[in-house]
């Protein structure tokens, strides 16, 4: 018998957020979290990382080699620069996830009108 279990998107999103923004890595979790928040439209992060995180959030197709290179120089390793890049991408994507689920929950959980 085949049993189809629906994906638990909320749990999967939270597992991804926890691993990338709070888990161990080559960069400090606070730096990853600040980059994620910046890409989601939040406050400026550390100057050396701010421009890339902001650009990834606003329009990643306009990211320049200089912006990535600057973070690579600041972190000193490709793995660390990769962590900043995916943290920023995650911040932009998960902020949309949270906003979309908030408005869906508002409607789905609203008391039925007679």
């Amino acid at each position, binding site marked *: 018998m085949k049993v189809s*279990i629906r994906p638990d998107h909320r749990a999967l999103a939270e597992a991804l957020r926890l691993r990338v923004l709070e888990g161990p890595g080559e960069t400090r979790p606070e730096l990853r979290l600040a980059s994620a928040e910046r890409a989601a439209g939040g406050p400026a992060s550390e100057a050396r990382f701010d421009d890339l995180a902001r650009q990834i959030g606003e329009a990643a197709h306009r990211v320049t080699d200089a912006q990535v290179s600057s973070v690579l120089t600041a972190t000193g390793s490709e793995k660390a620069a990769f962590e900043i890049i995916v943290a920023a991408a995650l911040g932009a*994507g998960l902020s*949309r996830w949270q906003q979309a689920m908030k*408005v869906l929950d508002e409607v*789905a959980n609203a008391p039925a009108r007679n």
Partner: protein
Amino acid sequence: MRLPEIERGDGVANRLLISLISTVSGMRLPDAARVAFYHRDFFGTPMGAWTQAAMRGPSSWSVAERELMACMVAKWNACAFCVGAHGAVAAKEMQRPVVNEAIADFRAAPISGHLKSALAFLEVMTLRPKDLKAEHARAALGAGLSVEALTDAIAVGALFGIVTRYADALDFALPTPAEFERAANMLLKRGYAS
């Protein structure tokens, strides 16, 4: 800017794997797969788990419909790599002209009303997230989408809001149309879990 470590793979096992897959498939392994292998414990594993569930897990949306959603998010984010990659997968089950019409103007394309309603929601979510309000969810549900179907669509929208951004920041190499076709076969067969 491309990172050389992602290009060649981190560690001997990943380098061999990239080389093997490229040889067997007869094409350069696309950068999306190279990223999935890179620093895998940090990103590829949790990202792959959610992506596989959203794109291939149980859902009222077909695989092609979900791939078209990914393609449309890529279009709105101006990510040429993801438009090509996910448009090619969608075209495996939909007709290619249908995919092209959707990319040009999804509201006029010959796709279902449900899919148009989901795409209308995802368009606001992707381009103007601060403008996304309960009225948008109400419109989608009012058009007949279930809460589960809209949740599944939102998951695709969120995931490709992430993928398109790192694809462009890391300057993914653009495969040829023939390579996108072959990569689409691989994505259909193997899915997204890394």
